[in-house]
């Protein structure tokens, strides 16, 4: 961990900055500097702490320790408004726009110009917005409703808003996640021109091809810690990947026995199509097998899992479930009845009733099996069910009547698992089951997957951390743009290989060549 590269004109410096959430340190003693008028990329894996750092700069979080320096002076950025006053604008990956307002209305949101009689001066706002858009070289009618714009155009509106506020530091948080190639190229072009005007751009991403195409310098963050900062010309994609992955706190993955090739195929997907994101795809899962899906956001994994669980409507293809043709689930209710269970990625939105007790959450899907003779829910059966799973999964709680909102992330996830194990599924789908879960609970979840598979359950597993998918699964299917482009047996490929494949099979050497030629805009960003 070297010292940050010193630059004569630093606009932003982080000095031993720490941010903790509860017991977990998201940003751990990070120091680096951003020079005035550069495009500075900050890269790292999911959860490395990039976004947390940016949120501190944007006034969303306050550092627990350490100092932020702005133009050489220590500052406390107390809230987003304060950040804006200090010239920092952030373009979040989840766009913060008002769809029902016009472009001009969004650019001037909360800073509306008023004319005579304190009425809004619509004409002046439209004119100024047009002026800003012209400067950006963007052809967009300021009177268009933002809701009608494409994602790329919305991003431009966000940038226009930053410019209107005369920000000299613009933070782009994963700006490209939803852009197509042409939109990306336009965005890059604009960013370069803004830089040439002296605006500093901090560009957060984990898409390295992109970063190498646009950034002047690059900072790598791993597990909340600063790794290094280098000029882009002095590093390569493999270097960066190595620094991003590093040697991490080893999570212990269970050993897997080879799957019995004679085991029954419990799920077979043939030509499943769900435009525009999925298919056609084919795969089969045997009883006792853990099949992993690897891919970037937008590669179709989420949609595939949703379709299998009856939450999405496919336009074509077959799902053969336990040898029964045409068993494509039409609703979650149907899917559950057919023996599917889905542990969703966002447990607070889809996984749990956060205000409910552990007991009520655990029993929600199987209430009909817990009735007494007169058809009422039998409290004893319900308690036994919840008690059993709390013990089996070692949920840390003093009572099954505790509300799940009061549990830690790992224990909440265990309650979700309990709820679905209670349905005794044949196929258990786990969508990013370790998100927001501490390392100990992660290992428990891996061990549980192994145990369930040994018991004959078929598991579909996907995670935002590729080495997890590699570590847990018997076979990993690589998704790219809605298709399965590769199937890897356990131990057959490294994380770095998979990282390249999920980006469309681009290998580092090729990228370097293309970087030298001003990066091909057709490079996949999906």
């Amino acid at each position, binding site marked *: 961990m070297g010292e940050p590269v010193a630059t004569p004109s630093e606009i932003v410096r982080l000095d031993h900055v720490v941010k903790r*959430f*509860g*017991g*977990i*340190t*998201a940003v751990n003693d990070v120091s680096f500097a951003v020079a005035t008028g550069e495009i500075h990329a900050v890269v*790292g*894996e*999911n*959860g490395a*702490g*990039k*976004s*947390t750092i940016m*949120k501190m700069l944007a006034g969303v979080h306050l550092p627990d320790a350490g100092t932020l320096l702005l133009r050489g002076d220590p500052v406390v950025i107390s809230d987003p408004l304060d950040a804006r006053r200090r010239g920092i604008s952030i373009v*979040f*990956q*989840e766009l913060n726009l008002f769809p029902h307002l016009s472009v001009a209305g969004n650019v001037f949101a909360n800073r509306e110009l008023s004319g005579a009689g304190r009425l809004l001066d619509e004409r002046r706002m439209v004119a100024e917005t047009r002026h800003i858009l012209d400067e950006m070289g963007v052809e967009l009618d300021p009177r268009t409703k933002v809701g009608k714009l494409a994602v790329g155009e919305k991003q431009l509106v966000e940038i226009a808003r930053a410019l209107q506020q005369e920000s000299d530091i613009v933070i782009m948080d*994963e700006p490209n996640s939803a852009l197509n190639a042409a939109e990306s190229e336009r965005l890059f072009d604009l960013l370069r021109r803004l830089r040439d005007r002296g605006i500093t751009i901090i560009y957060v991403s*984990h898409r390295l091809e992109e970063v190498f195409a646009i950034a002047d310098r690059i900072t790598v963050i791993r597990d*909340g810690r600063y790794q290094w900062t280098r000029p882009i010309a002095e590093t390569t994609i493999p270097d960066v990947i190595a620094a991003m992955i590093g040697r991490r706190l080893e999570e212990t993955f269970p050993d897997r026995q080879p799957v019995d090739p004679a085991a029954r195929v419990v799920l077979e997907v043939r030509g499943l199509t769900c435009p525009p994101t999925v298919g056609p795809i084919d795969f089969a899962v045997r009883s006792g097998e853990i099949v992993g899906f690897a891919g970037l956001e937008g590669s179709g994994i989420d949609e595939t899992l949703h379709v299998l*669980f009856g*939450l999405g409507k496919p336009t074509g293809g077959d799902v053969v479930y336990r040898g029964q043709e045409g068993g494509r689930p039409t*609703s*979650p*209710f149907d*899917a559950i009845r057919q023996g599917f269970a*889905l542990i*969703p990625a*966002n447990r*607070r*939105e*889809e*996984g*749990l*009733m956060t*205000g*409910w007790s552990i007991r*009520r959450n655990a029993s*929600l*899907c199987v*209430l*009909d099996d817990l009735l007494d003779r007169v058809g*009422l*829910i039998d409290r004893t059966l319900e308690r036994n069910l919840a008690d059993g799973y709390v013990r089996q999964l070692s949920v840390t709680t003093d009572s099954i009547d505790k509300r*799940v*909102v*009061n*549990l*830690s*992330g790992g224990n*909440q996830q265990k309650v979700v698992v309990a*709820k679905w194990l209670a349905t005794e599924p044949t196929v258990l789908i786990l969508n990013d089951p370790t998100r*927001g*879960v*501490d*390392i100990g609970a992660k290992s428990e979840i891996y061990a549980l997957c192994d145990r369930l598979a040994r018991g004959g359950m078929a598991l579909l597993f996907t*995670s*935002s*951390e590729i080495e997890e998918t590699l570590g847990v699964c018997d076979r990993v299917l690589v998704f790219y743009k809605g298709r399965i482009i590769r199937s890897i047996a356990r131990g057959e490929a490294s994380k770095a290989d998979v990282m390249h494949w999920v980006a469309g099979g681009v290998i580092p050497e090729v990228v370097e060549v293309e970087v030298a030629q001003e990066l091909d805009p057709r490079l996949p960003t999906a």
Partner: protein
Amino acid sequence: MPWRRHVPGLLDNLIWFILVGVILFFATQSDKFLTPINLRNILAAAAVLGVLVVGQTFVLITGNFDLSTESTLGLSALLGLWLIVPAVAPTWGAGLLWNPFVSIAAILLMGAIIGWLIGSLITYGRMNNFIVTLAMLLILRGAMLRFTEGNAVNGLNFPPAQVFYSLGSAPAVTLPWLGKLPVAVAAMLLLFLIGYVILEHRPFGRDLYAIGGNRAAAVASGIDADKRIRQVYVLSGFLAAFGGWMLAGRVASVQVDLGEGYIFQVMAAAVIGGISLNGGRGKMIGALGGVLLLSTIDRGLNLMQVSVFWIQVIQGLIILIAMFIDAQKVRFRAPVVDTGATATTAGTAASTAPAD
């Protein structure tokens, strides 16, 4: 602060403390208040309101509204009598002279069908529940006018109409001191009991709380939210028609404005009883408390000969106070919720922040 832990529980049951307090207050204001006949009147007045509140509670728990119940009630009461009485003055019926039992079955069925229609518009039609039921409130009231051409339907001197009175005003049980309780009161209490059992002890009730609490999670848990919502509207419509039968029996003669304005009382009672308008929260027993409190205050103020204008003001104030108490519940739960929220955010940020 240990006492804070008990605050939500206390606030949840506050309605009963308030009810006792209010009764004691009126007892000191009027010696006619704590008399059997007055208490019987309070219960009798609460009966129809209570029936509507049971239905409304089911709907509210799912996070929906049913504004149409007072019109379903009015139309049912009117139609029920209209079908059995002669067409001439002074009864002004349809002249169909239906068997009263058939007519009652018909209006109960009609109530259920209206509810199913509303539920279908909301779920299949993806329409806003507030607006759909508001429209039905107007449409059904209009239908009443059309049926009767503005005449009141009178069953007073027509013997077959007695069936209506059997529910509305006939005595059911005789209690010591309190005297003879009308069938209507017993029916209302029974419905609250059934409602309580369904909400607390049947999977159906759990589903409703799940839908109102977190619809996305409910659907992902295999609950057919749309079907459940149609079912609660059927229940609400059915109970509104049942309330119509009850009210027709009390008043004997049905004007076209029968039941008008009930919806405010229904919503007030539910809210006072702790039913959250956001769905997912509230108990049937609390709703009963709300009903009793409203009718107690109504009756008490009448006894004190408070002007009718003031009664409305006071009812409005009670609703505000109830909402205030409800807001405090959320506030006192906040410290607990915060710990959990921080813990989850922490986990999320540290390992695989979705924003990263």
